[in-house]
């Protein structure tokens, strides 16, 4: 292609991207830059024009706050446990759906239901099902004679994190299933037939063939889910408002910013969240060796 043509193409490319780029500059880059900027100021939300620069004081103040560390621990516990369970459960359900069984289409449709339900709604439904006195789960447990009186799932400090993880698993396993299923369907059927003829037993077929070939798909799904879990806000907020038991870093940052009106410190907390997520993203990509795995799949 001639230089002139190439230049015309390049100009066309930027022209086509211009609306998207302008939109991103306005709603992503600019607010992000302002957040970074505010995190070095002592601004308050009620009068954001009146402030002075305070250096890194805000960052240190966040680190000094005991609640921040609780929120960080909660977020990490929540993200790691829920993604781990979702991966295993998602893999199991994906393998199940991948079998030639009657009702396969029905299951595939059914798993989309939890995914389509808004987080707030799912949380409310489970909150009701887990209600200590009238919840259907406790009533069933009592009927089965497993407990004599209802368990206060959402009131007790240790159980509530479990409940948050449980609801998240219910809502997001479908996403895992779909991604892993797509990976499974990219494995040529003849390879599995070859293993069958070779007399490879089921477990070995899974470990030596299915799992290695699924690695890229699982890796991508885990990365997406980890990043999503790290920014979780609505589930814990609806279930427990600002209770420290399940407070995530997103809730913490919003609290400082909106509830306490501390624009400067809230922004610093947001920036910490950003750094935390970026750090973990790099970690996950490195551990899963996604770049290399992707190369092998090709």
């Amino acid at each position: 292609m001639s230089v002139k043509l190439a230049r015309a193409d390049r100009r066309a490319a930027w022209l086509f991207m211009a609306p998207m780029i302008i939109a991103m500059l306005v709603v992503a880059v600019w607010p992000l830059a302002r957040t970074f900027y505010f995190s070095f100021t002592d601004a308050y939300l009620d009068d954001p024009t009146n402030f002075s620069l305070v250096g890194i004081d805000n960052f240190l103040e966040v680190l000094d706050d005991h609640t921040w560390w609780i929120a960080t621990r909660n977020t990490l516990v929540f993200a790691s446990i829920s993604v781990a369970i979702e991966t295993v459960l998602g893999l199991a359900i994906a393998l199940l759906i991948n079998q030639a069984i009657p009702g396969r289409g029905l299951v595939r449709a059914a798993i989309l239901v939890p995914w389509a339900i808004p987080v707030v709604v799912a949380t409310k439904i489970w909150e009701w099902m887990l209600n200590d006195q009238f919840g259907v789960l406790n009533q069933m447990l009592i009927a089965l004679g497993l407990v004599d009186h209802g368990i206060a799932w959402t009131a007790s400090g240790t159980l509530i994190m479990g409940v948050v993880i449980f609801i998240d698993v219910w809502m997001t396993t479908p996403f895992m299933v779909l991604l892993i299923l797509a990976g499974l369907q990219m494995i040529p059927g003849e390879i599995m037939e070859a293993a069958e003829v070779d007399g490879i037993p089921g477990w070995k077929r899974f470990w030596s063939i299915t799992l290695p070939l699924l690695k890229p798909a699982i890796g991508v799904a885990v990365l997406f889910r980890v990043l999503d879990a790290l920014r979780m806000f609505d589930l814990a907020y609806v279930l427990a408002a600002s209770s420290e038991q399940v407070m995530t870093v997103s809730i913490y940052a919003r609290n400082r910013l909106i509830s306490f009106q501390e624009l400067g410190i809230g922004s610093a907390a947001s920036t910490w969240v950003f750094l935390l997520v970026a750090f973990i993203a790099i970690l996950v990509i490195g551990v899963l060796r996604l770049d290399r795995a992707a190369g092998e799949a090709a």
Partner: protein
Amino acid sequence: MASVELKSVSKSYGGNTVIRGVDLAIRDGEFVVFVGPSGCGKSTLLRLIAGLIPVSGGEIAIGGEAVTDVPASKRGIAFVFQSYALYPHMTVARNIGFALETLGLRRDAIRAKVAEVAKLLKVDHLLTRRPRELSGGQRQRVAIGRALVRKPEVFLFDEPLSNLDSDLRMEMRIEIARLHDDIGTTMIYVTHDQAEAMTLADRIVVLNHGVIEQVGTPQELYHTPKSRFVAGFVGSPRMNFAPVTTTGGAPDWSLAGPGGLALAVSVTGNRSAPATIGVRPEALSLVAPEAGRLSGTLERLEDLGHEHFAYVRVAPETVFVVRVPVRPTIARDTRVGLAFRDEDLFLFDEAGLRLDHAASHERAAAASIEERAA
């Protein structure tokens, strides 16, 4: 090594029947090729024999033992797939030896067997490579090696050469024939390539819409096809067909067809009337218009170097292909005559079944002599 027997095997998916009551007996050590148009069920039939898909009805026996409900891995078969189905994340050596790992063989024993098979198939220099680093032909050899190492009683091939280019296909075809000569194992081979079927098979099974049209040696199929379908399927270029109108009554008919065709035939055996005639391109010769059995206009000449094909339009919608050994010096759009011997004439009735006629017996006799000599 083992025989394979199918008794009224059928397979349907929902209401869609793809295999309808197939009966077939394959002798120990035989090389049988399944051919048929795409969608005829040949690959399905192979997978039923392998046990990769369960039958809907009927019985399958391998080596005289009923295996209808036995899983694929216990049937003593090996399968070579169209896509080769090599495990993409394993080296060539592990691909070949993977089946042995689960049999509890020692590591060095596995390595020895893998090395032996690899050497046999000339892939011993590739053992540490991954499948994606191999050429198509090399992948094919590894796939065969993987099948071979299990020492199967029956080898099943599902269009194994269809992903190779034509040179390599020829080379691998010879290789597979040699393999069969060497190890003498029963082989069942699915292909849509006639040349493969004709050259490899002891017997060819022609499938159409899930039923067997005909089973026979390549010569039987070529010389005495049971139906118009088989006649059209075996031979390249395919047999020329033309509809005819009949006068007279069984067994002696007068036929009139395109291009001024007028013939008197005497049908033997079957009493139905001929509806179609067929002549193979290689049985036709170009002659002067008035000297031929029928005549038409030369439309096109194809020069393949060692042979030539003339396309002669004998009727507005009928073109006959003629194979001529020497390039004819006839201009296009010239009227030409087509000649053939009586014994090269095929007759088919309304239902597409071939009818014997007085002269066709000579051809059958000649064919069986030819076959005995071969």
